[in-house]
């Protein structure tokens, strides 16, 4: 599955239009990937959506990767997967985020699906999305401390809501806490 | 293959504009089912469970059992393969040395917490000695106490049912006996010397 650079239409388009902000590109196993600078995320996403040659109408997935155990800096990678229905292409856009300053511009106004994906990413990784209108936890409860998918969150740590637990123990199992 | 698209048909006929025809059509069908089940052959897939049991497939992954060699020794060599591969971490093995020198290593403890088990069958695949199997055909395990679900090595027999044996036998009396005196070395059943 070797793909030459000339076939990677989107990559070359992005390289032409944003020569400075494309940090790295590769095509591992046929997945077209560009790593971009954090500052230009908004303009690149807008370009990807609106440009005739790209027209990625659909945001398929948005997530992050924690590379703590790989001892990489920057620690986090934001991963966006886009799908173009018109051209039948996919692209992966990655942004590297430092641990100290893990915030990134929100792209919620470009695709409607972004809203919840960014909330989930915030919930799981603690990545802050600037300008997101409603950034709060989605899968975990509000009192939850920490961000469970970070690699330094211990696997076996438990955080039951104490009040509920007390009620359950006392009234359900007749045990004192 | 090229992309073929089919537009689904929304039925909008004259018949669909009234309530009555559909009601009669529906009644005809349900009445057919009603009388077929009332008088004719009952086309029912329900099983009256405790009385009837569904025949399970040969490949059904049920409760585990530990297999034995012809002479009644456990096949298990306590290699920890199943414990390593288990995604639910429900197997716990302690290996021990055996006085019988022909057996190098054997499980002093082999516990399976059946409440944790997810019945994936990875342990069966991982076992190099075919010592653990899930082919007992036991579909449901319903016991009244959590303790009952901790299956120890000697309980992992083919036909063990805690509901029927009030006090499970921890001895070796119902295991196949060794043929000759020579092979009947002390504690040769894989039972730890107490």
């Amino acid at each position, binding site marked *: 599955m070797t793909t030459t650079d000339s076939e990677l239409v989107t990559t070359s388009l992005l390289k032409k239009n944003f020569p400075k902000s494309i940090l790295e590109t590769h095509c591992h196993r046929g997945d077209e990937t560009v790593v971009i600078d954090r500052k230009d995320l908004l303009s690149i996403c807008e370009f990807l959506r609106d440009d005739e040659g790209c027209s990625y109408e659909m945001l398929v997935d948005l997530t992050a990767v924690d590379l703590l155990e790989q001892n990489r800096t920057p620690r986090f990678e934001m991963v966006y997967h886009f799908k173009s229905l018109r051209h039948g292409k996919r692209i992966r856009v990655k942004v590297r985020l430092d641990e100290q300053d893990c915030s990134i511009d929100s792209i919620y106004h470009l695709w409607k699906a972004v809203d919840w994906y960014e909330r989930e990413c915030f919930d799981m990784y603690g990545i802050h999305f600037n300008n997101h209108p409603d950034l709060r936890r989605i899968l975990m409860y509000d009192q939850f401390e920490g961000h469970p998918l970070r690699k330094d969150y211990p696997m076996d740590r438990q955080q039951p809501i104490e009040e509920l637990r007390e009620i359950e123990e006392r009234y359900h199992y007749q045990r004192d806490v | 293959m090229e992309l073929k698209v089919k537009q689904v048909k929304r039925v909008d006929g004259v018949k669909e504009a009234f309530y009555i025809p559909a*009601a009669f059509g*529906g009644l005809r069908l*349900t009445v057919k*089912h009603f009388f077929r*089940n009332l008088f004719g052959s009952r086309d*029912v897939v329900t099983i009256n469970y405790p009385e009837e049991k569904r025949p399970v497939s040969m490949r059904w992954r049920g409760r585990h059992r530990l297999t034995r060699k012809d002479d009644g020794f456990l096949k298990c060599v306590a290699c920890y393969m199943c414990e390593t591969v288990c995604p639910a971490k429900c197997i716990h093995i302690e290996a021990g040395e055996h006085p019988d020198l022909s057996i190098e290593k054997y499980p002093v403890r082999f516990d399976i917490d059946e409440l944790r088990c997810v019945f994936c069958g990875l342990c069966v695949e991982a076992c190099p000695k075919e010592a653990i199997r899930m082919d007992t055909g036991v579909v449901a395990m319903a016991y009244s106490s959590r303790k009952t679900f901790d299956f120890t090595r000697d309980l992992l027999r083919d036909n063990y049912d805690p509901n029927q044996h009030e006090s499970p036998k921890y001895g070796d009396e119902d295991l196949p006996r060794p043929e000759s005196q020579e092979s009947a070395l002390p504690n040769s059943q894989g039972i730890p010397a107490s």
Partner: protein
Amino acid sequence: MDLILEILSIPLVQSILKIAFIILLFAMPLGTVLTLMERKWSAMIQDRVGPNRANVGNYTGNGLLHLAADGLKSIFKEDTIPQGANGFLYLIAPFFGLIAGVATFAIIPIAGPIGDFTFQVTDIEPGLLFIFAITSLSVYGAVLAGTSSNSKFALLGGTRASAQMISYEVFMGLALMGIFMVYGSTRVSDIVNGQNEYWFGNLIPMWGVFTQPLGFFLFFTALIAETKRAPFDAPEGESEIVAGYFLEYSGMRWSAFMLAEYVAVAGVAVLMTTLFFGGYHVPWLHLWESAPQWLVTLLQIGKFSIVTIFFCWLQIQLRWTLPKFRFDQTMSLGWKKLLPLSLANTALTAVVVLAFM
């Protein structure tokens, strides 16, 4: 012995006995058995087995013991009152429906009279108007239960129930106008006797279903809507507002709602039998003039029961066949389709009656 006969000939005693007979031996058992039959019959429609687990020893009676089990269970269950509920209204609400359902049976004759003795609690002059009056009473059951439970789902259910039942009473009345005109009376015995006449010699009995086919459909629809059963069970709305107006009830009071529903089902069935299927009259029986009186009465009770059970079955069959209406669709069906149809039916009947009778 004479004393007993004398006491029995007192009208009041007769009425009390008849009430006891009809309620204890007809209405309530029918309603109770229907709660089980609904489950058994629906199981047959749906290729299931149905309830068959309740047992004494090893005897299950193919599910029959579930009746006893259900009754015992609901008696011994805690009768909860939700916090903030209006206690008094909450407690009495379940019995409105039950009373209304049972009262329907008061004017239904289940067999022909023998001499002075009628198989009917009372044969009052207003007849069916009494039914309308009584069924409007059952609205209060739903409304009071809904509003007094202090639950939003119950409130939604109660409002839906009140709107639906009050609307459908209109069409119920209008659909029966034709019957009143054709048989010239609102008295039930007149209507039943009117249906014992024949067209074309002795060929077709003048049953309501033949004289008023449209009225039959309209009345049946309106009655099903009035009893809040599928496809008109939006007030219960089990999938969106959980159980509607009786959501908060438990134990015996919940059972009262259930029993009221099934008594109402039986009530619908006896009304349909009486008004549209000749009541207790066995068709063409008058041709056999030498029939002994006791046999005739038995045949009449038998015919009445069979048609009643058929209509109970039909209602249950309909429930498990049709999807249910949304609440606004129920209302628009009533006001936009049934109302014009029943008005047209009334007008048409009036013209025909004037022209030919």
